[in-house]
């Protein structure tokens, strides 16, 4: 499919720090992309470049065939929901929502009608005359969303849309935002540092680190086939343990780990790893507790209870810690246990070169 919004080789530096480093991305019409990364990864700068508040040092931003790289934000027709909403405090909810429509010359009855429709869209029908400081945080956010959507922008940009909300509100709001954007069908880029948010809202997720794009893919792809140790560690729960690669097997790699020998599946397309030191990254569900001559022995040092199952942290003889998921009553803290690869470990164990950061 031809991309609707595309970014090619985008770079931006502030003084000596590179905020965005040669990023190339594209979105199809109606797609939701989540920019995920730790603080300082350049995701907010990316969003501000897209909005036009910053000018890139290199690269292009295109909407369909139009190059918008140097188009002023005023003329770009990208809607934005700010992290702290940036609602105009001296205007009421309706005037806030109508602000962008007035820029388009919409007046009178049509203005009132479209404001009402935008507010109804976010489930806030009839609050036109309310002062924005009298609205709850969740309502303010929905007004900000209605304000951004009312002028029917080409692209919607969301800056940490849930960070200002009460944790108990987040999950519900997340669902509401997702459903709303699906319904409107607008191409959306959102920034977040919470992987739950990125997985839940993004059709695809772009993982950024130090301004560089580490990997783009669907949440499943990122989880099952992380491109490198950073993505693997940043996306999903995982633990790491140093291993020695012994050599390839028919469908995987044989490694020595804490005196045991395990066979790790090699994802299709991955190069065969040469013998030598490496790092094994494991998802908690890819390991199981069990006694066996190939088990790694260790001591349970912590348990995190989550209801149907618990996460046990186990310290091995070498001092590494591994997280294993098991029934809550399987073992107690302080007990000696053995750890084995789970029978359905496929996709949960990844080998990375030792020097790969």
């Amino acid at each position, binding site marked *: 499919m031809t991309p609707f919004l595309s970014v090619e080789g985008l770079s931006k530096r502030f003084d000596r720090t590179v905020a965005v480093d040669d990023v190339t991305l594209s979105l199809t019409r109606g797609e939701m992309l989540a920019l995920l990364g730790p603080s300082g990864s350049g995701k907010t700068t990316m969003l501000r470049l897209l909005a*036009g508040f910053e000018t890139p040092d290199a690269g292009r931003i295109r909407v369909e065939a139009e190059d918008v790289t140097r188009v002023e934000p*005023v003329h770009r027709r990208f809607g*934005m929901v*700010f992290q702290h909403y*940036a609602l*105009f405090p001296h205007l009421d909810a309706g005037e806030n929502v109508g602000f*962008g429509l007035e820029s388009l010359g919409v007046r009178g009855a049509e203005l009132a009608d479209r404001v009402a429709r935008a507010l109804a869209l976010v489930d806030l029908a009839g609050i036109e005359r309310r002062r924005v400081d009298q609205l709850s945080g969740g309502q303010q956010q929905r007004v900000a969303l209605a304000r951004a959507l009312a002028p029917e922008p080409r692209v919607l940009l969301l800056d940490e849309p849930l960070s200002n909300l009460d944790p108990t509100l987040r999950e519900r709001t997340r669902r509401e935002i997702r459903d709303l954007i699906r319904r409107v069908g607008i191409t959306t880029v959102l920034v977040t540092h919470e992987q739950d948010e990125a997985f839940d809202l993004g059709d695809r997720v772009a993982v950024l680190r130090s301004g560089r794009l580490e990997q783009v893919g669907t949440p499943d792809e990122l989880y099952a086939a992380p491109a490198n140790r950073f993505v693997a560690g940043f996306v999903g729960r995982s633990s790491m343990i140093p291993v020695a690669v012994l050599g390839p097997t028919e469908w995987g790699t044989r490694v020595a780990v804490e005196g045991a020998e395990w066979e790790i599946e090699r994802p299709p397309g991955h190069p065969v790893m040469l013998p030598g030191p490496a790092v094994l990254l494991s998802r908690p569900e890819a390991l199981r507790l069990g006694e066996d001559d190939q088990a790694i022995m260790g001591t349970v040092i912590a348990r995190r209870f989550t209801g149907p199952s618990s996460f046990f942290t186990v310290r091995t003889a070498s001092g590494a810690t591994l997280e294993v998921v098991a029934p809550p009553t399987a073992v107690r803290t302080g007990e000696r246990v053995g750890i084995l690869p789970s029978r359905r470990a496929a996709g949960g164990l990844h080998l990375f070169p030792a020097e790969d950061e």
Partner: protein
Amino acid sequence: MTRRGAGGLAVGLLLAVLLWLVLYPLVLVLAEGVYGPEGWTLEHVRQFVGRPTEMRALWGSLWISVASVALAALLGIPLAFLLGRYDLPGGRALGGLVALPAVLPPLVGVVAFLFLYGEAGFVSLLLMRLLRLEEPPWRLEGAGAILLVHAYSMYVYFYLLVRAALVSLDGSQLEAAASLGAGRWRTLRRVVLPHLKPALAGAALLTFMTALGSFSAPYVFGGGFRVMPTQIVATRLNGENQLAMVETASLTALALLALLLFRSRSGGPGSAGGRKGAGPARIVIRRPLARLVAGVVGWGLTLLLLLPHLTLVLVSFVPVGTWTTEPLPPAYTVSNYVALVQDPVRVRPLVNSIWLATVATIAAVAIALAAALLNARRTSGPRRAIEALLALPWAVPGTVFAIALATAFSVREPLAGRFILVGTLWILPLAYLVRNLPITSRAITSGVRALDPSLDEAAASLGAGRRRTLVRVTMPLLRPALLAGASLAFVTAFGDFVTSIMLYTYDTRPISLEILSSLRQADVGVAAAYGVVLMLVSAAVFVVGSGGPGRGGNAG
């Protein structure tokens, strides 16, 4: 023209205007002290250094200012603690009343003092009657009288700044100190005082600069005791213009030196680290006797501080020539106020002060707003120069600026940027404008800085251009700051005495000069009525500027 080009042009234009109005006159004064009709000369500097009267005036200025700081602190700090930390009966009302002198023009305070503590004032007459004295018990004259007026009008700086700092103290810090076993004194010394340091330094500087430039009190009460501002005026009256220029330069140097000294010492962390918790709860005095004493002290002190103003109101109802030796005036009338509105000669100063102050206010707000908007998002050499020029008049005593403007604009040399404005309608608004720039721009700049930059971006992303963003978003949000800046500018200009006395003409005589001439004609009732009008208008404008009575800054 590109947007950046237009911005650059605006910065250049503003810088040029400020250089011309603020810096240029000062430079001319400095130059004319050493350059006369006969060329370069150090004769006047030699005269200045040689004459004992000059050195005495300079020394007088210095020690009076230092002593004023000490006295104002002595009065203002305990008041701030009493009203800021303790829960007194009627504490809220007290808090507001005690801050009242902040909005009163200095001359009004001086006149009120005269009516109360002067030789023919209430207190003096009362004592003569009680003690059967033939002569007034004292003469309100000299350094002592000046200091009394200064302490009385300048304690407000210490009171307001220290009280604000006390309120901003994080209450949990006090609780933390208590839970760590620190007693009341140790908490005061180790927690409260360090927190107050910036406020104390700020108040001391403010008081020092105000005292150094103070003119009304030394002019009215000084008698033979001269400080530099009154000395300058006397020298001008003697026709020794170039000597006056040297005096002006010396006073400016003293002011700038003080500013530098304070700046280099008052650095420090202050209340860094931000504040999360709520302000400390006020201490409730439980023992009934202690509560009574604290209440009486609080109200008594407030009454004492407000007595001059009450006196002014009382005197404004006294008919001409009826009050001579009685402790209280025997007759009352509203005719003084009627005269203010009906007699064309009396109306004139009122009208003058209103339009002069209005023009100066509009111009000051316009310049301050332009500077604040231009400097909001970007810094550069010229932009920093604009900021410095806007702040400069604060450090320069009013007398100095009056002389500087009188010098710069009494010659017609269009090529040198000099025009004859002295003796015209425009010199006073210009002088007020220059004097008002620092406070007005401080109020407006802080308003602009407080604006959330993402509001501008939100407007842009919603398709609003620069003009629409300015009209629909920026200006409405700046309204409180603009009002505050405008009201400060108006109140200062409306009550100005120090620059007016050197630059006014009969046609532009403002209220302050009319008060003085009424006093000279022994028309005390009318003088007091003018004073009351000045007081009421100032207070009303100030209340409007601080967001109306409901949201007033001193409501607590």
